[in-house]
């Protein structure tokens, strides 16, 4: 269904998630104050898989949830109104926790800016970190990720699509030439 070059397959994604999970618990020195918040849609599944991996590493439950950024976007007026996606802040909240935002692709950085604004209305975490499966460059805002699955040099003409098992039935990252 998707034409283009597969740059990560199922086992590449599994390895990247495993490494990200290790890096996250290493930097937070354990998982007790850690809250993983996925940005819908695919960031949520990614954050669930990272949470499962960290639970295995640390043998301790990890709080995980989702944070919809639709109402905080800066491009709302450029497109028709979109449907909202679920926000689920884990019990215990984010107050004084280390929040790791999880998204599939980091591109302009505008989604992350919106997520930071959304987070601000939920509470005041001790620190906020950013984990992404793919960093494709071309930032438009001064935002950088703390944990990266794969750095993927792209041109702005290209389209990067992340597919995940539960959402799309397959694990893969595909780069295609965008047809305009």
């Amino acid at each position, binding site marked *: 269904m998707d034409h283009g070059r597969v740059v990560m397959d199922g086992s590449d994604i599994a390895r990247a998630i495993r490494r990200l999970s290790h890096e996250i618990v290493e930097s937070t020195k354990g998982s007790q104050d850690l809250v993983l918040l996925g940005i819908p849609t695919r960031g949520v599944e990614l954050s669930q898989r990272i949470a499962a991996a960290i639970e295995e590493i640390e043998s301790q439950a990890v709080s995980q949830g989702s944070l919809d950024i639709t*109402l905080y976007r800066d491009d709302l007026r450029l*497109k028709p109104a979109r449907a*909202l996606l679920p926000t689920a802040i884990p019990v215990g909240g984010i107050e004084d926790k280390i929040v790791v935002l999880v998204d599939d692709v980091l591109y302009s950085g505008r989604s992350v800016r919106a997520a930071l604004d959304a987070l601000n*209305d*939920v509470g005041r975490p001790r620190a906020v970190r950013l984990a992404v499966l793919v960093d494709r460059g071309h930032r438009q805002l001064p935002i950088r990720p703390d944990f990266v699955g794969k750095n993927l040099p792209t041109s702005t003409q290209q389209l990067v699509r992340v597919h995940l098992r539960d959402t799309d039935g397959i694990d893969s990252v595909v780069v295609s030439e965008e047809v305009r």
Partner: protein
Amino acid sequence: MKHLLSTADLSLEDAVLILDTAAEMALLTDREVKKLPTLRGRTVVNLFFEDSTRTRISFEVAAKRLSADVINFAAKGSSISKGESLKDTALTLQAMGADAVVVRHPSSGAPYRLAHADWIDATVINAGDGTHEHPTQALLDAYTLRAHLAGPTGSLRGVRVAIVGDVLHSRVARSNVHLLQTLGAKVTLVAPPTLLPIGVEQWGCAVSYDFDEVLADQDAVMMLRVQGERMNQAFFPSTLEYSRLYGLDTPRMATMGTNSIVLHPGPMNRGMEISADVADDPRSLMVEQVTNGVHVRMAVLYLLLGGMKESAS
């Protein structure tokens, strides 16, 4: 969609989108910081030619929670009382740069006129026009029914709802019949023949004159206010007779299913269409309807104003 004038204009997908969005709004405002930045810089005018407590405040709270600027414009104390026409009022609002006009008017069709007469570019939201429609009330009723009878994202398909009382003067009834039927519910109107509009048989729902016969198989009962202020003749012999035949009191409520719920759009005439005991019963959800109203109106404002400006369709 640019305007919300009638629930008859809503497809099943539109209606479900509004209800789902309202459910998310409910979660987002259930926290300390209730304000969202989404409609920053937009202006919403509440244009009320008729008295209202709930609807006006509800729209005001909804718009403010989305960070819109709100201007309240009541007919009393404005140039309307000096005889200004709807058109001149509309042109004034246009000149002041309103992005949305929430309008309540005693004449049926006034919001439609405002939306389609080319006087203003703003989005028009009908907050009740005469005896015609009150779409956001129907949406909040459907939201409340769904939350109690079908789960947060469930379907109202097959749910049985009786709408009881002054259907003739009720914009709430008409909006609810359209919307609930779109959502797949089975609606029965219950009223004395004098309080049913002409042509009600074309609404596509069941009609009954006998409340007791209908009551036992309903999942929900929606009581309507007897609108004395719109009655210029005798529609029923006496208040007592009306409340005996069509009022919901404790003995009658006992014949309802144990999981059935009671709605009322408010304001209630306690002792007329609903007894005080029933009004205060835990199965009566009037207070919850008011809370849900804010979330539904936030959803409507967001979906109509949050995105790109559409040219009039």
